[in-house]
């Protein structure tokens, strides 16, 4: 290929207006130094023969021609970004979960995962919420913050939370009933260790603030007279 310069060349022919250069062809010939290149090469512009290319493999006629011309779909190079995180949600914020098994629980936010979901923990000892992913839309952010500096969340990402792929079971008549009675999957020990590691420093910083532990242990609920649009969270 043509050798590329390290920095692209600025044109030596500034535009007077768009489409009209300042210098004529003959002036530009002189400015670019084509006369010097020619002189170096004995009066002729240097000509390099093209490098011998390897002979292209002979193409076979295809076995199958499709009946109709099918259009190729347009190329899509979009890379999805994780959902925009609300400004009120920062690491260490106390969130209120609004849906699911832990509805109403107050929970500490750790970080946003690459899929856009929020990584959240109870802490487990305080309110029974383990390390869990939660969608930003199903969450109220309070203005209470917990000091999260002692927590290392580097190892957690979406793959950590992927479901275990179990082997497929054949649905034989007799086996059907026995297969149902299999015991619940136990939580692997390393996940328990991870939970303890994260919660250890968190609980210490929670116990510093009076009443915060009891606050996280309690569930949120709307009482009579509370107007959500007027409440400050």
């Amino acid at each position, binding site marked *: 290929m043509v050798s590329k310069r390290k920095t692209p060349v600025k044109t030596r022919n500034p535009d007077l207006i768009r489409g009209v250069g300042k210098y004529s062809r003959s002036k530009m010939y002189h400015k670019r130094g084509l006369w010097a290149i020619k002189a170096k090469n004995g009066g002729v512009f240097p000509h390099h023969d093209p490098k011998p290319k390897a002979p292209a493999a002979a193409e076979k006629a295809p076995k199958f021609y499709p009946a109709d011309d099918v259009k190729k779909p347009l190329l899509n190079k979009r890379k999805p970004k994780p959902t925009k995180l609300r400004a009120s949600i920062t690491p260490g914020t*106390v969130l*209120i979960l609004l849906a699911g098994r832990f509805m109403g629980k*107050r929970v500490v936010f750790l970080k946003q995962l690459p899929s856009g979901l929020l990584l959240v923990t109870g802490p487990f000892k305080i309110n029974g919420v383990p390390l869990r992913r939660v969608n930003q839309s199903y969450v109220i952010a*309070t*203005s*209470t913050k917990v000091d999260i500096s002692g927590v290392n969340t580097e190892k957690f990402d979406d793959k950590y939370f992927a479901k275990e792929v179990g082997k497929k079971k054949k649905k034989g008549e007799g086996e059907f009933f026995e297969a149902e009675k299999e015991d619940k999957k136990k939580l692997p020990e390393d996940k328990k260790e991870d939970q303890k590691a994260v919660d250890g420093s968190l609980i210490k910083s929670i116990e510093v603030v009076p*009443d*915060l532990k*009891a*606050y996280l242990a*309690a569930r*949120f609920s709307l009482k009579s007279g509370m107007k959500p649009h*007027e*409440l*400050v*969270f």
Partner: protein
Amino acid sequence: MPFKRYVEIGRVALVNYGKDYGKLVVIVDVVDQNRALVDAPDMVRSQMNFKRLTLTDIKIDINRVPKKKTLIDAMEKADVKNKWESSSWGRKLIVQKRRASLNDFDRFKLMLAKIKRAGIVRQELAKLKKETAA
């Protein structure tokens, strides 16, 4: 029952509608039957309908349409701010504002405090009941 709070120059009123809701203003002149010229240290002097104002007990001593500086000095002299904040009406408004700005965590702490206080009260009551029964 005669009226006690009159619309007069120097009467301090509370704005109850509009952009300046909740502000204390001084009636500085009367435009016509329905409107007053009204002024406060932190706002541009403007006219307001009387329906937007609620009169307070506080009155300051000024002439008709004083200069801003004179108004501010007169308000300082009459100590309007402190009189208002120590009046029961003013105190209620302050409490309302504080309650509205409570955080979720603050509301939780408030609930704990209320329960604690109720417990103490009930203990004392039980003690007193025992004494009178005995």
